[in-house]
Structure formats: C-alpha cells, structure tokens
C-alpha cells in the first residue's frame, strides 16, 4: 500500500501517453519540484486507478484531513470504512477522536 500526500507527491517516470492521461484526469505537474498535485477531483477514481497501475498495481491511498481539528489520519482508522463511497480519496472528513469527543460541525469555524 502506498500513502500519498495530496498536496505534492512524486511518481516514477512514465511514458508520454500516460503522462498526458494523468494531466487529463486532473493532476498538475510542478516542473521545478518534479512533483504532482491534484487540481481536479472530477475523475478522482480513474486517477487513482491510473496511479495504481503506474505503481505496479500497489493500492494507493491518501491521508484524510479532519475538518474539526486539522489532523491528518488514514481511512483505515475509520469505523465506517466499508460503508464509505469515497474511502481513501483525498477529501476532508472528521477524525475518530473528534467524533468520540462529540464535537459538532460549527466547531470547525473556531
């Protein structure tokens, strides 16, 4: 399993067609840093499958960011993992700790 940071991550060198496909699916390439970041989430599932195929079919996952406390955490910690339709995708969520503490949504403004 490969854990990626949605803000910037590096991939092995790929052939031209694959690189174009990655950009079409919503990645952005930083030429100076040599890293990718996600610019569009419209085709995120296909994007993940393509990245996975580049990484020799390794399972790809992104860390989640808690909207209440700002902590990064993996989806595997979540008890709703099997029910989630967007698991491992690079989206915001609420971490187990904040759920346990009973924090409500408005707390995120503070």
């Amino acid at each position: 399993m490969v854990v990626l940071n949605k803000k910037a991550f590096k991939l092995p060198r790929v052939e031209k067609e694959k690189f174009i496909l990655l950009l079409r699916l919503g990645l952005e390439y930083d030429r100076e840093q040599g890293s990718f970041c996600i610019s569009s989430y419209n085709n995120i599932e296909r994007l993940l499958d393509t990245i996975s195929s580049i990484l020799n079919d390794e399972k790809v996952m992104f860390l989640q960011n808690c909207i209440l406390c700002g902590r990064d955490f993996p989806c595997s910690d979540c008890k709703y993992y099997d029910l989630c339709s967007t698991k491992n995708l690079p989206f915001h969520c609420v971490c187990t700790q904040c759920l346990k503490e009973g924090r409500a949504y408005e707390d995120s403004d503070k």
Partner: protein
Amino acid sequence: MKDDFLWVEKYRPKKIAEVVGNEEAKATFVEWLKNKRHTKKAVLLYGPPGVGKTALVNAASNEFGFRIIEMNASDTRTEKAINKVAGPATSFVALDKFSTESKGNLLFLDEVDGIAGNEDRGGVSAIVKIVEESRVPVIMAANDPDLEKLRPLKKVCALIRFQQVRIPLIIAMLRRICIMQHVEAEFEALERIAQNSRGDVRSAINDLQSLAEEKRVLTLQDTMMLSSRNRDISMYETLKGFFSAKSLAEASTLLSRSSVDYDDLLLSVSDNLPLRYTDSRELAEAYDLVSKADVFRGRIGTENWHLLKYFFNCLAQAAAVAPQSCKSFELISPPIRIITLFWTKGKRTALATICAKIGARCHVSRETAKHDFVPFVKIMLEKQKSNPINSWLKLELEEVDYLVKMGKF
C-alpha cells in the same frame, strides 16, 4: 415543540463554510466565482441529490453579494421562457452593481438534467446561447451530467463534481442541529440516521426532524422505523463492479441497481472485454453472450421492459465467463464509438456540406452524391486542384483541401 419550518430550510447554510462536505468542490467553485476572467463562462455543479449544490450557490451568493435569478425544474424551460427570464438578467449590468453591497446578478439554473425533451423544447440550446453571451456568472446544477441532451452544455461549462457526503461529517452536522434544537441525541441514533442517508445531507436532516421533533431525547430505538434508501451508481462504478464481480448473481444485482444508459453500457462492456479476458476462447464466449444481450436490447425497444432481466442475465454471464482469472485493468470509458463520433464530427460535417452541394448541383440525394460522385470528384481534384469543377460545384478552398486529403470512404 413543533417547528413551523422544515429544518432543512431553518438550517440552510448562510455562509460557504456552513455547507457540509465537498471542501475541494467548494474551493474550486469559489475560485471560479471570484475570478472574473474565467476560461469558461458557466459552471456545472453535478453530483447526487442532497450533497449541497444548491446550498453552496445560495450561500456563495449571500456571502459575495450576488442577487440570484433562479430557474428550477418547477418552471417551464422552453427556449422562449428561458430567453424571457435569463436574457435580460444576463445581458445588462444591473445598476445596483455599482453600490457597495451588491455585485449584480447571478443566473442559477437548477436541475438542468430535468429539462424535458418535448415540454422544454429548445431549452438546452437557449441556455448555451445565453452562456456564450452572458455578462454575469451562469451556474447550473444537475444530478446526472452524462445525459445525451446535456452534451452541448458540458462543452461550454467548467465542471465541478460533488460526491456523497461522508458519514462522520453528517454525524457532526446532525449533532450541531440537535444542540440548536435542544435535543439530546444518542451517538448511535445519529450514526444510524447518517448511515441510512447514504451521503444525502438533506434526507438526513429530514429524517432527524421526523424522529426528534417534539422530543427532548433521541435514542437508537427511535430510529428503528427508518426505511433504507437506494442510490444509483455511475457508469464507471458499474463497469468496475461488473468486471470484478465474483459471481453471476453479483454482476446481475449490480446491473439492476445501476441507472446507466443500457446502450452505452453494452458498448462499454464490449470495448472492455478484450482487457478482461486474455484467453481467446473465453473472449469469444463472452462476446457471444454480449451479442445475445444486444439482441435482447433490440427486442426491449422502448416498451418490452419485461425482457430486461434477460438482457442483464446475458451481460452478467459475459462478466462471469472465467471469474477466477479476474485481474484489475484500466477501464475504457466512455465507449470508443462515442469518442470516435465526437472526434470525427467536424470531418463528417464537412463531408455532409460537400455532399449537399454536389447533390443540389447534380440533382441526386446526398447519399448518392457521397457514394457515386465524391470519389470521382476527389480524383479530378487530386490531379488538378484548380479544376473548373470547383467553381461549378461552388466548393470552398477548405472543402477542396478536405476532399484531396480525405482517406477512404
């Protein structure tokens, strides 16, 4: 105490930050709205119902001081009606734009996928025209952007996808409402409402109101009467699930739950079969089953829906020819045929124009012109580009070039 308002209205987000979930889509939308030099003049927000598309537009207009001019599914949306409402709103800059409080108008067309074929005739093309000429932001919302009728709209819009809202986010939001309504809710009760909503915030709030209104305490026991909701699945999910199904029953159930267009599904399955089966005998068997499914699709037409189970069954059998050899692969979607038609549209239009000119001059149909005249005109032009036949047929220079460079028919 019983509320006079629906909680979905009472707790409708006033600020962008109050819209639950889809943070990435929210950020993209706000960036688009703030940027006056958009590459696309309109934006299409799409995703399942109840995930905050309309709420985000309302909250953003409230926060940035836009006045919304809205047309939704309850309005008649013919070309005439759209031009009557949206035309003036988008072509003139309102005077109040120059005040400090208002930024002017914003046109919001909700549920554009609900524009009906006959009742709303010309609706989509009228919207496209308005988008091209508009001087104010145009925002549209739809559940299913893959509909054939929305293709012209997608070309002129920036697309922003909304996903189902995650369960922990819904729980946190329900907890906030409970605090405001002075309801003491058990965590398990909120958890069950959130799970049952399947990512639909609106239905979660409605469920909470129906269960917790006029109560001080909400327990898990109270939620037992909630009925489960079904959700449609998209083409990509359908194909992914279909090709990784371990059994006939699994593939069949998935197909019956999916809401994709059956003709597109058939083409997509056909395109992806060679990637799924590497053994030629298995591939032949799978294609045989797909051809049978195609026969049933033809017989179903628009009325014999009782045959749909046979269509599903044949397709499911095609997926389960060799379930043990299943290996993940990169899916081809949308169907190659549709992509090819899209890419060759310009060429086909050019050829149709040439055939129409030849047909009119030679008193034959366009089809006859295409098959019996164009090959000979091409040979004549290849030998001499400035052939007098050009002026006689009134062909443009680009059309002559097209004919000369054209491959086989």
